[in-house]
């Protein structure tokens, strides 16, 4: 119990790594491929189909498109429109009316910079999240070890509640702030704005959510 506070200090930034594992519902509707229809999209930073080896870094996935993916993604790989040269480009299927980017269209310098940033940031974020989870598991183990010696388990229960609150808060915070950020970003700057807004919202929401969730968990844990 006496370790609380000092052990928490580095944890919220690690929980911020959760942003790139989540999907964010974009509040706005977009013009559909059929005349007069509107489509919903969600933002993700991983290929949601579950296949390894995607060369894309950010995805605007059309909702309810089944196993056949439809949407827009920011891709780094060989491009058919530049003779197979590797570059940052957009890949899209059935979302031309929504975002205005043709399939295999070269990305703007800004979009390419975003892609490059995501490519570097995502593995670091995943590593941070795994490290954060590991440190939390270690803390819980330490409390449990102490409880086994004293026979008093309230400290372990309190730590468990605090950790669970932190991760639940990080999830809820990242999801809600990421969706909000994606919505604001869409309003300000098209698909690149959506991706930047979603990522920033997810990171900030993850940190804030972890802190708030931990505090709530700590408060609940004090009742043990």
């Amino acid at each position, binding site marked *: 119990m006496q370790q609380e506070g000092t052990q928490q200090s580095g944890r919220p930034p690690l929980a911020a790594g959760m942003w790139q594992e989540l999907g964010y519902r974009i509040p706005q509707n977009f013009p559909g*491929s059929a005349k007069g229809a509107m489509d919903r999209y969600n933002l993700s930073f991983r*290929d949601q*189909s*579950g*296949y*390894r*080896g*995607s*060369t894309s870094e950010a995805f605007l996935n059309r909702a309810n498109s089944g*196993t*056949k*993916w*439809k949407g827009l993604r920011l*891709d780094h*790989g*060989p*491009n*058919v*429109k530049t*003779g*197979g*040269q590797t570059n940052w480009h957009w*890949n*899209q*299927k*059935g*979302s*031309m009316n929504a975002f205005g980017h*043709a*399939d*295999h*269209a070269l990305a703007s310098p800004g979009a390419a910079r975003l892609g490059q940033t995501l490519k570097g940031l995502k593995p670091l974020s995943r590593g941070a999240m795994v490290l954060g989870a590991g440190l939390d598991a270690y803390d819980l183990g330490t409390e449990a070890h102490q409880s086994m010696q004293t026979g008093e388990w309230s400290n372990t229960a309190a730590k468990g509640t605090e950790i669970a609150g932190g991760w639940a808060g990080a999830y809820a915070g990242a999801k809600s702030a990421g969706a909000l950020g994606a919505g604001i970003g869409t309003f300000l700057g098209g698909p690149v704005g959506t991706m930047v807004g979603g990522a920033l919202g997810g990171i900030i929401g993850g940190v804030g959510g972890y802190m708030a969730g931990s505090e709530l968990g700590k408060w609940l844990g004090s009742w043990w």
Partner: protein
Amino acid sequence: MAGKLVVSVLGPLDDAIAEQMKADVLAVCLVPPPHQAKGFTVLPEKLSDEAKLRFDDGALPQEWMDWWAAQVASLQARDGAALITLEPGLLGQHRVQPLSMETLMAQMEMPTWTIPAGVVIAWGVDDGLMGRKVLRRIVCAGALAVHVDGCAAVLVADPNTVRGWCAS
């Protein structure tokens, strides 16, 4: 190798680029050396205005689908002809199944079609692997893999086969 269906909207890929893509194919298939790589691609600038609109909206050109169908028809007769497709999951397993037109055409709508070497036609594959999911590289005599977001194909085979493919 059934070059009759090749029309003007398709053309060869730069050899240096095809050589770079060879590594992606060899990560899935173990083709015994010596081997060469040759690529074939959609040429968007040669599409008709109507076809270009469809291509810009993510549809594959009909000529490209016909070209793949011709490859299947040609390679199906070879011993150990198989369709190797990436399976979902972190391990990156591949499913090996007997080559057929239907299974290949179904793949064109899947996310695997846009992943480098996510779909591979191979020949000389051990019959014992058919219908199985495989984690290791699959030994075969030659492989024709999808690449460039599903708009190019890379052949990796012995130099004689590659020369014959180019001549056809």
